């Protein structure tokens, strides 16, 4: 028996198959995972992401604290509600977690971190925050539902109070706003437009029902994973962890190197890595024939070396198998993958594989 979100009974009602995810009993699918995937690409689907950890930070030195804690620079976000994706590193430059931070003022931020890393994240953040007199407040009483898909915002707008609705619909990508008891952000993990809606746990079931009535399909963690893989969005624990720096996980773009005097945790370690020239690349792979790429399969590059798939699977949109992989540095476009002892052809492709309903690679 694991932890349950306020929507657990709703999942059972919708016929969910429940699995353990980081200690939580979560829906992996309700029926066909592929149909859930296509619903998000073509119309709208929704995911219970209440297991994710929401942390509010307050204190006069909150900005200064986050400029130390995070590899991206919160000084870049100055508009109320603006969001920033970043890694939180250890002293060795390894990724403790990836997260989204929202700005409400230099003394008030909100973090959304992963569920499976909750305890170590809170311990780490709490330990660092002490030096800055920043209050760390986990919002365990909040639920969160991600509505995703080309029609998600239009269909989900019904749950937002009328006085905020127009403003919410006009909100730009990677912003969030409060709308009464709700917090609505134009963010997600699927490569589609949509919102993540945060609400008091007591409202979650009613909001869920309203969203179903609006025509949004309940979708499980299975579809969430194939959608994020197509969008080439990293999964913590698979594509990176504490033994991997952002530079080796395709997340170099999230590191704010300027200003050079900002001494964020892990900076010295990853600066050294950057100077030493990286030995690995993080790439997208397309399997040329039939079969399925999976995490931990070995990648062989003739005359150069070997790498490993960090996450892989079948892409319902492309109808081929795709993967993210860490492979040896070098200039090449083709490699082999070892699937149960057979060496099959894979091609390196520029990610994302799929974005906003469109296949973005050459098949």
């Amino acid at each position, binding site marked *: 028996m694991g932890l349950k979100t306020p929507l657990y009974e709703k999942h059972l009602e919708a016929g969910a198959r429940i699995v353990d995810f980081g200690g939580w009993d979560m829906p992996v699918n309700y029926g*066909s*995972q592929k149909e859930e*995937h296509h619903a998000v690409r073509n119309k709208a689907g929704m995911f219970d992401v209440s297991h994710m950890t929401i942390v509010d930070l307050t204190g006069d030195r909150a900005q200064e604290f986050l400029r130390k804690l995070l590899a991206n620079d919160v000084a870049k976000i100055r508009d109320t509600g603006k969001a920033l994706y970043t890694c939180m590193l250890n002293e060795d430059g390894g990724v403790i977690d990836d997260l989204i931070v929202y700005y409400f003022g230099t003394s008030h931020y909100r973090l959304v971190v992963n569920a499976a890393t909750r305890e170590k994240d809170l311990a780490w953040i709490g330990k660092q925050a002490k030096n800055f007199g920043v209050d760390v407040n986990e919002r365990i009483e909040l639920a969160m539902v991600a509505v995703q898909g080309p029609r998600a915002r239009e269909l989900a707008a019904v749950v937002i109070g009328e006085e905020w609705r127009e403003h919410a619909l006009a909100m730009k990508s990677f912003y969030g706003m409060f709308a009464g008891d709700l917090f609505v952000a134009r963010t997600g993990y699927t490569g589609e437009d949509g919102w993540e809606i945060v609400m008091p746990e007591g409202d979650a079931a009613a909001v869920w029902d309203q969203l179903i009535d609006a025509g949004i399909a309940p979708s499980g963690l*299975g579809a969430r994973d194939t959608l994020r893989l197509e969008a080439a969005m990293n999964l913590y624990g698979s594509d990176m962890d504490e033994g991997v720096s952002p530079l080796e996980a395709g997340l170099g773009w999230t590191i704010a190197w300027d200003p050079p005097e900002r001494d964020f945790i892990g900076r010295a370690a990853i600066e050294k890595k950057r100077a030493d020239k990286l030995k690995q690349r993080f790439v997208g792979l397309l399997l040329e024939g039939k*079969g*399925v790429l999976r995490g931990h399969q070995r990648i062989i590059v003739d005359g150069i070396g070997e790498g490993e798939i960090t996450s892989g699977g*079948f892409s319902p949109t492309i109808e081929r198998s795709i993967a993210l992989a860490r492979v040896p540095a070098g200039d090449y476009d083709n490699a082999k993958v070892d699937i149960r002892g057979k060496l099959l052809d894979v091609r390196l492709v520029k990610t994302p594989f799929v974005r906003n309903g469109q296949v973005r690679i050459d098949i």
Partner: protein
Amino acid sequence: MSELPGDLQYTKDHEWLRREDDGSVTVGITDHAQSALGDLVYVELPEVGQDLEVEGEMAVVESVKAASDVYAPISGGVVAVNEELADDPEKINSSPYDDGWIVRLQPAGDFDDSGLLSPNDYQTLLDDLED
């Protein structure tokens, strides 16, 4: 959960077997197995003519979620494989006991069903899993 076909035998690994008139045995995976796996996206089949040992690897079924081995329920030679699964692995989801058959084996020696389950016994096994 739909009713189990009564004319089949089953294994604890959620496979089914059907004895054909010519003495061969058709093998597939059960409705329970396909439902647990989720949408199938790839099936790796053995070669026709290959000899399989009981409990040896016979096929691999891959769903959107995971890859799963299918073991030979009896020793025998592969006399046919369901080629249609190459292009349409979801036949296993939509028709696990019929269009979604996987392999046909010619038993090595006499057909030995001592390790197999009757529909009733398999149903009991499923009921125990539910608890």
